[in-house]
């Protein structure tokens, strides 16, 4: 079954492939994409040479987006890019979006932990994306041991979604806990729940589908921290119909991407 993986990163953040950052990891990504018939939607949360946790300032962000562009080219049709911005730097954000989404083919926006996603700083950025029907992929978690600084929760994303009903929002990780994220996303037609990252917990995808519908769940892996096999097992092991699984693995994200008018 062809799959669109809406949540992939360019960096080998722990040197998992032994090649560290860059080509060795990218080669393995391409091999897995070919083996499992996957297309990656990819972003770069930390460009090569920068430290994890470093403030994503304009220089950092531009380097990150250039790295995403290079990754996409290396994947030879197996990847499409997301533009990473920090709403704290508005001028940079619009310049990056105009360049990478407007002119160089990136398919959406990636937001991480620059600010909480219910911050008004996001409003003009979300409006820009909504006008072009470009999806916004926002990292969310609800950690029992406490979120990090400016790390958004599903409830914050729900607040943003209500404020911008015309925007298409992908709730990355669905809060890391589908039981929690499902309740936050329920009833929000412009929110799509990404199942990437976290363990393949048995039975919780069915819970998520019951709350938001199979037409509002999208597959993501969170490579490289998670393996494709562990994340695909969430779908393959779930008590869902083949049609629902196709929606999650491919159909929903394909529909979101087809609606773009950049």
């Amino acid at each position, binding site marked *: *079954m062809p799959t669109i993986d809406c949540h992939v990163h360019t960096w*080998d953040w*722990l040197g*998992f*492939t032994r090649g560290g950052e860059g080509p060795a990891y990218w080669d*393995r*990504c391409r091999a*897995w994409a070919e*083996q*499992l018939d996957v297309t990656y939607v990819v972003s770069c949360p930390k460009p090569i040479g920068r430290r994890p946790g470093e403030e994503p300032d304009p220089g950092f962000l531009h380097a990150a987006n250039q790295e995403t562009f290079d990754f996409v080219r290396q994947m030879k049709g197996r990847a499409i890019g997301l533009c990473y911005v920090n709403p704290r730097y508005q001028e940079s954000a619009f310049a990056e979006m105009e360049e990478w989404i407007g002119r160089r083919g990136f398919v959406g926006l990636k937001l991480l932990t620059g600010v909480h996603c219910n911050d008004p700083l996001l409003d003009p950025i979300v409006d820009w994306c909504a006008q072009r029907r470009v999806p916004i992929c926002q990292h969310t*978690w609800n*950690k*029992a*041991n406490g979120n990090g600084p400016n790390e958004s929760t599903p409830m914050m994303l729900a607040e943003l979604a209500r404020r911008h009903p015309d925007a298409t929002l992908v709730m990355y990780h669905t809060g*890391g*806990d589908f*039981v929690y994220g499902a309740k936050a996303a329920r009833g929000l037609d412009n929110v799509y729940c990404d199942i990437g990252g*976290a*363990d*393949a*917990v*048995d*039975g*919780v995808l*069915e*819970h998520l589908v019951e709350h938001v519908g199979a037409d509002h769940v999208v597959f993501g892996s*969170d*490579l*490289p*921290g*998670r*393996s*494709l*096999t*562990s*994340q*695909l*097992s*969430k779908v*393959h*092991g*779930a*008590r869902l119909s083949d049609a629902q699984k196709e929606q999650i693995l491919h159909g929903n994200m394909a529909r979101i991407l087809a609606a773009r008018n950049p």
Partner: protein
Amino acid sequence: MNTSNTSLSELFDVNCAVGEWPFRRVPCNTIDRLLDRMDRLGIRRAALSRLENVFFKDCLVGNRELAALITPHPGRFFPLYTVNPAFPGWDVDLDICVDELGLAAGRGGIRLYPSYHAYPLDGPQAAALLERAQALNVPVVATARLEDERTHHWLVKVPAVPHDQLAAAIAAHQAVRWVIAGLRAPQIRVVWRALQQQRAAARARVLFDLSLVQGPIDECRLLVEAVGAERLAFGTNLPLTAPESPALALAHSDLPAQTVAAIGGGNAARHLGAGGTARPEP
């Protein structure tokens, strides 16, 4: 994507439980549902404990339930009786497991939940139990983690068993046949390195299960390089975790068929002393 790799036809799950979980409904909460899931994935045998014993004070209650549950299904389960060495009378309860429930070499093992039962695995209480396990010649499955700590219930936050405790206990009880369940790939490496530094790696009788090895990419191949295929075993962490995860990881690992077969079942059968092959019930 499927698990139809022929090397995976005789899976032995070293990390399985049956029962209810306090925080949500789990799909495989009964023995029949568990067997159905096992058959669909080609899991022929499972080392099984009673999930309720994670929270029961009197684990003998859950152990008796476990024995009753598996009796109608000979050959499918290798019982793991839960023992809490910090609870009064654990030694008498262990005697009951031996005398009444049939715990013996090749016929079962001991399951430990050190974090949930709040004792250090490298402390004197655990040491007393590990000496009994060694004397009985039964394997010990030590649970390092059941769930991602970030997703725990707000009132029940249970840390994973620390790496240094795992390594110290394994090094101090090298005659015990250990299964360490629920470690991530990087954590397996850390424990293994600690055993190497303590010059205990070569003699340690330990298997690491794959249930929560859910990344990074190429996790199985990289772990084989790090600790050796003979130290790894298929495990599911059912009913909390999807068993398809380790099955798919092995099926797509690009490891030689012989290696996949060893990790999938051969290592477990040999290590637990549970020889013989069980077939699904008609």
